[in-house]
């Protein structure tokens, strides 16, 4: 089965519960192929949780959901050594983290201390409880949802280290008028778990991931990516720029873009397309930046400023 068929199957399954969002589904598909964690951020009622649940269903394997609340503790996520009065001994109880797909719903409602419980597992696919290391199932993907920080009371913004671990931040936004009309006429009240079928097995994901690694990234394209990354570290509105982890994330994501576009090589256009989803949430703006601008605008300015690599004889203006 070629990549177009996989993508089409995936979209048709998600399309049973979510209307439209074609571009978002492309991005999610790329993230799945790269085993990247996704942060869905948009205003309430745009289908973040439904999409996450549907997405989890399309990927074979186990699925767990944690509703993040202010009183949630790190051990509620990772697990703990529980005292057993019968045996007079501590027994390891691994938390809901031990799954293939974890839906962290409303992640910013928990305290940063609890949010930090995900740091180790998101990066290393393992947890450590009282010094004991526990490997987590593969693939392991975190799908997190959050409302925009500014508009929500009683929320805690995600720590920078946590944000850096998400491959992409995707804003679902409002559907178009036509899509919303379609949504109204469909009157789809079906249960997500019943409506959506699994389309990816573990073997399929592994196979597609192998194919992605064969996508060629020319050295000039790598230089272009590095130019953008380095600009993020020097911009006057940025306190902390994109990390080396972000560089690798961009590299993986552009390979995914090239793949779904049916190419075996990456172009600067792929980078321009995907960079806002992969890099903007990694920028930590300084006070001036927070006051006068925002992450998306700063990144757009950086991308516009960085010179695009062109073949010899082609004018950059022609691009």
């Amino acid at each position: 089965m070629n990549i177009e068929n996989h993508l089409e199957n995936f979209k048709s399954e998600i399309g049973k519960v979510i209307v439209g969002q074609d571009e978002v589904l492309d991005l999610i598909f790329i993230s799945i192929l790269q085993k990247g964690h996704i942060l869905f951020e948009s205003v309430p009622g745009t289908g973040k949780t439904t999409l996450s649940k549907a997405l989890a269903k399309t990927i074979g394997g186990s699925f767990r959901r944690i509703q993040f609340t202010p009183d949630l503790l790190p051990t509620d996520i990772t697990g703990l050594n529980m005292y057993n009065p019968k045996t007079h001994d501590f027994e390891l109880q691994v938390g809901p983290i031990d799954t293939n797909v974890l839906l962290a719903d409303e992640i910013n409602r928990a305290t940063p201390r609890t949010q930090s419980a995900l740091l180790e597992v998101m990066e290393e696919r393992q947890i450590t409880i009282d010094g004991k290391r526990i490997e987590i199932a593969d693939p392991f993907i975190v799908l997190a949802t959050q409302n925009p920080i500014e508009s929500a009371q009683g929320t805690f913004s995600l720590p920078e280290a946590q944000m850096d671990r998400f491959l992409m931040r995707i804003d679902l936004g409002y559907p178009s008028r036509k899509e919303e009309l379609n949504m109204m006429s469909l009157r789809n009240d079906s249960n997500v778990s019943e409506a959506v079928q699994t389309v990816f097995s573990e073997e399929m994901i592994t196979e597609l991931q192998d194919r992605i690694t064969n996508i060629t990234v020319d050295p000039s394209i790598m230089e272009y990516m590095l130019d953008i990354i380095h600009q993020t570290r020097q911009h006057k509105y940025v306190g902390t720029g994109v990390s080396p982890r972000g560089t690798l994330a961009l590299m993986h994501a552009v390979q995914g873009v090239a793949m779904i576009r049916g190419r075996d090589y990456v172009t600067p256009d792929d980078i321009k397309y995907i960079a806002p989803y992969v890099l903007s949430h990694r920028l930590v703006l300084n006070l001036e930046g927070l006051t006068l601008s925002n992450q998306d605008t700063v990144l757009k300015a950086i991308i516009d400023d960085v010179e695009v690599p062109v073949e010899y004889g082609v004018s950059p203006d022609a691009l």
Partner: protein
Amino acid sequence: MGYHQMHYKTEYRPSKSMSFFIGAVLILLIMNILYSIDLNPLLVFALGLFTSFFTLDYFYEKTVPGKLRASISNKDIRLFKDQEGMLEIEVRNEGWMPILNAAFRLTAGDDIQFEKDISLKTRYQTETISFFTVMPKSSTILKVPFRARKRGVSKIIRTDIEVPRIFGFGSLFLVQSNRSSDELLVYPEQLHTPPFDMRNKMIQGLFIQKKALFNDPMLTVGTRDYHQRDSMRDVHWKSSAKTGELQTRIYEKTTHLSWMVAINLRSEKNYAPPANIEEIIENIAYLTSRAAEAQIPYSVFTNLSSFDSHTFLSRDEGSGGLHYRSTLETLARINTLSFTLSFDRLLKHIYLHKAMPSHLLFTGRTDPAIDEMLLSFQARGVEIFQIDESGVLPYDAYKRSGSRVPS
């Protein structure tokens, strides 16, 4: 900040040249009918030509307005006073007819000034014209440079477009058919003032956290042996099980430091704002930037009437960069020509409905009623400071009111 699409409708303005042309053709036609039985081939040709142009022109007039859209593409524009900015307007032609050398007229509030300002007669407005050409099913971006003139919110008042008729004479005048909701925020400058003493406080009974006066229950720093009066809620069960004895959590100590900035927009003798109100606002912009950097939580209140769920224009307590952004927005939105309420009423509202801060910073004049309210704050351990354009000075309400300091 709205991302708003502007729609247009045709405003009928008679074209003198078109009327002249129609008149001339009609006269020629009548004269021809009167003086000859057969129609002159040249006249027939001219009439046909005119009819074709007239039909195409009619089609153009009916097609263009409904298919032209404009929107400000660089939404959320925020600047400090005297900064220069660029407004980017995307004009999209969804029709099948090209629009050649059209003029886009943009009118905004005078908190900003367009680089090529053409407004001469109207006060409190700035206006500019940009020319553009846009092909069918495509769009173009108009770049309009401007400078932030003064603190405030510059609303886009209206836009209109003059499109030259490509098949006729004169121009089509398109006026915006929906209301603009876009606005540009001009923040106040930051007036640097000497720092003032802001010691951390730990006051019993004033901390917002109701269950722990001095401890932060979210931050456990260690454990100790259980004492008889310790709450069972504070027992660290895991540690107790490990050690075989009851252990109590030791929490991180909390400090209480928060500012409340109360801005008085009434001057001494009348309802007009104080003469130095802009300097005071600039001073507050600076002080709150320091608070934002130091992660000190603060709130801002004004005695300006608010028409939303809050009685007064205010910004609830928060900290950090994003809160500072909101604060600057609130400061930009203070309209000194708007309806104000008495300052002592504002203070009473705060006293009754808001958590007590450690520091109250107020601006403007005082009178016995205000002093009485400030006295109530001071009696609850709040340190009071008065802000003017020169800086922040301690304010002793007891001394001012002649009351006795409670022992």
